[in-house]
């Protein structure tokens, strides 16, 4: 990565590693742009336009994803109709938290993948687990180059007749579960989802929807980077439906009890 000018006199302890007696530029600081790329920093240092939580839950016969439609520009609620949940094909849906540009970059690549598959016309279509595996490899390899895609992804769909829900984060940690939430949702919504699933492990579609809407409401109350305008995606054996622009009823009367609120 960074050429060590004293490498012959003081060979580094490992390739691209520190050489005893020499100053070592730690990778990932972004202080010295790599000359191999014309001096431009190409790594995502910190996200710019971001999306907050995505919630996912498996119910009896399918899986449901929910998330708001906000792209935050730091603390500014700048883009209020961003689709953070997209349909990949008739059996797979993808939702993303984090940097919107990185998500849209991957969205274009995945859309092209679906087109290529269509052209091959050999009956094979991308399945949720396969997309999840591919996404894991891409994200892990990017993080290994210190240039991560600053997102956490939720992959949801029907795999061989069974509902599937998987998650991958920006450093390539991947897992699958019956209930997953990213961002603030992991702290606020996931306990609510766990409680509901413990009471009734095989929820109906309507119960799952009610649960997710309740969680979205709590998130809107508590997450300062959330918006009261949501997407809900439902995937069953019949196919994929994504509803946009869902608004929630909220009750802010409790604000009156907050000291200092006028």
């Amino acid at each position: 990565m960074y050429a060590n000018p004293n490498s012959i006199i003081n060979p580094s302890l490992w390739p691209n590693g520190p050489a005893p007696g020499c100053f070592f530029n730690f990778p990932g600081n972004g202080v010295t742009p790599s000359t191999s790329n014309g001096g431009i920093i190409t790594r995502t240092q910190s996200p710019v336009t971001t999306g907050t939580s995505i919630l996912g839950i498996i119910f009896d016969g399918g899986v449901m994803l929910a998330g708001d439609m906000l792209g935050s520009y730091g603390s500014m609620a700048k883009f209020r109709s961003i689709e953070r949940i997209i349909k990949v094909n008739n059996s797979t849906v993808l939702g993303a938290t984090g940097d919107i540009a990185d998500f849209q970059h991957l969205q274009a690549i995945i859309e092209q993948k679906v087109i290529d598959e269509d052209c091959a016309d050999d009956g094979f279509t991308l399945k949720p687990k396969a997309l999840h595996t591919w996404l894991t490899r891409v994200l892990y390899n990017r993080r290994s180059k210190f240039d991560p895609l600053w997102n956490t992804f939720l992959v949801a769909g029907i795999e061989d007749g069974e509902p599937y829900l998987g998650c991958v984060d920006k450093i390539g940690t991947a897992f699958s579960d019956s209930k997953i939430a990213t961002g603030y949702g992991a702290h606020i919504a996931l306990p609510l989802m766990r409680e509901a699933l413990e009471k009734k492990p095989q929820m109906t579609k309507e119960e799952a929807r009610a649960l997710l809407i309740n969680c979205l409401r709590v998130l809107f109350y508590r997450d300062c980077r959330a918006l009261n305008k949501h997407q809900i995606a439902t995937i069953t054996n019949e196919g994929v439906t994504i509803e946009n622009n869902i608004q929630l009823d909220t009750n802010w009367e409790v604000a009156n009890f907050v000291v200092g609120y006028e």
Partner: protein
Amino acid sequence: MARRYDTRTTIFSPEGRLYQVEYAMEAIGHAGTCLGILASDGIVLAAERRNTNKLLDEVFFSEKIYQLNADMVCSVAGITSDANVLTNELRLISQRYLLQYGESIPCEQLVSWLCDVKQAYTQYGGKRPFGVSLLYAGWDHQYGFQLYQSDPSGNYGGWKATCIGNNSAAAVSMLKQEYKEGETNLDDALALAIRVMSKTMDATKLTPDKLELATLTRHDNKTFIKVLPVAQVKTLIADHEKKEAAEAAKSKPPTTS
């Protein structure tokens, strides 16, 4: 004379032929026979073993049949070292796909990928083509059991039964007559394979050390690839010879005394 257009792969002759590719196929025509037969419940691959020298150290289980991934196996005919390079690459392609997508590569995609590589060697780089033809036997969840054949030009096709290598044309015409689509199960296919191989191989008598047989089948949602042990090959050959003797006795008129 065509000589002027022979030596480089990447040019056409005036008649529009690629001589290097044709010469490669010529080389394969002298190699040990390989045949494949698609049955309703599996696939049979048979191969003629040429290296039967007793001094050879028995390191390899199979000379010409290679497993590519969990669901595919192939047999090769042609220049062995070229074949080693290609089978290695096929295995790598399969594993890369498995790593990326967490599932087995579809059969035709693997064949197609390698054939694109083979074709590139006939068009770019000034290198000679691979002197290998391959028979691929595999299973995937979309199309079930499949048999493919590829040659040095990079062309491939799907087959119900086919043959490559020495005397392959004779074998293919025999298969055309005797192969019954929809009525052939694995045992029928094995018997047919022995019958055809006995006619096309150089040896006067079939012995297990000269013949390699492999089957690909599915049980309990898993693919099973088996290279038949010597004992089983011996039994199959014995059955074949018994049938041959019975046929011969039938056609001979009874002796009158």
